[in-house]
């Protein structure tokens, strides 16, 4: 698959940024040190010019329109690409956990407990950081629809891990708005 098929300089839509930040939030829900891991990975991957410190990284993520304190400033394509690369690396790190959650070979009761734990952490993060008046946030917190959406996010992270994951995820985040 041609890597250069998606133009490098295409900025992400608000909807794409929303999905990207939600996946980063899932990474934090899966790993208690996820926030720190993001900062560390950003430095490790050489994004210090784009995100000199954790506050700058945080500010970029606040372009998500679902955030309580959302920023209207548009993100540059190189900034969103860096965030996608960080997510790609986090998904790679968390892949064993993502795989376990998605597997039907695991004992159902044990896997239900894992999902409950993950969804509980995600709910806490969503309530803390996202605007509860937005329909998208209400859907995430809904017991039925929220479970389906969080499974979609975990599956998307699993398919974004690894070598080919970056290009695939970027193409998906550039999808047309429905």
């Amino acid at each position, binding site marked *: 698959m041609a890597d250069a098929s998606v133009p490098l300089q295409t900025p992400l839509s608000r909807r794409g940024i929303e999905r990207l930040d939600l996946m980063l939030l899932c990474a934090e829900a899966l790993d208690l040190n996820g926030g720190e891991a993001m900062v560390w990975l950003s430095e490790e991957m050489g994004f210090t010019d784009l995100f000199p410190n954790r506050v700058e990284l945080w500010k970029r993520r606040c372009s998500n329109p679902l955030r309580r304190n959302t920023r209207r400033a548009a993100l540059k394509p190189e900034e969103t690409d860096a965030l996608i690369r960080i997510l790609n690396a986090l998904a790679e790190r968390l892949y064993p956990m993502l795989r376990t959650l998605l597997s039907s070979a695991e004992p159902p009761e044990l896997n239900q407990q894992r999902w409950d734990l993950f969804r509980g952490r995600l709910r806490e993060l969503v309530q803390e950081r996202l605007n509860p008046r937005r329909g998208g946030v209400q859907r995430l917190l809904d017991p039925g629809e929220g479970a389906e959406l969080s499974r979609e996010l975990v599956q998307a992270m699993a*398919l974004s891990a690894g070598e080919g994951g970056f290009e695939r995820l970027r193409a998906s985040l550039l999808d*047309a708005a429905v």
Partner: protein
Amino acid sequence: MKLTSRYEQTSCRLVVEGLPDLSAGQDSSTIGIVTGFSMGLAGHTDLEGQREHLQALLAAVIPYARHLLSAVPKAFGAADSPVAIEPSDGRHQLELRSRQPNTPPLKIVLDDAELSDLVRCLDQLRLDRRLAIPFELPELHPLSRNDLRHRQPLLRRVAAPLVGVATLLISASLLSLLPTPKAPVDVRLNRPTLALPR
């Protein structure tokens, strides 16, 4: 000298065997000609195939994963292709069709974790620099609004136009109940005032 490349994940193993294409100037550690490949999926017997099967596997599974990432599962693999994949009751059905007549296709159902493992193995394989084989794959591109329309539930998609049409019908029927104003009549001449004077 025969070369072997292995790609492994928890539930999937791909092994590619081949030879360097010395006529194309490749070094002795690069596979330029595939002589065969085998795929082992957990719980199933190992499958063996040729380069065309590997190409068909990539051409079906990689675009399928791309669509699944956007939460719009879609079947891939034409009727005459040796490999096809389609969503099946929340899982993914991989269909491997034999060229030999009277051999029914082999259907393997994968769960989300097994599919991710297969996609990762195929990603490693297609991006491996030691494998100098030009696999033909459709380009990665963002999905159009038309591709994504299945993501929204039908009710949510038709809600806005439905409310619009309903409002128009209700207001039209209410307006039709109002009496039509009669044309003002000239009392003296007992004819409509709009008539031209003689």
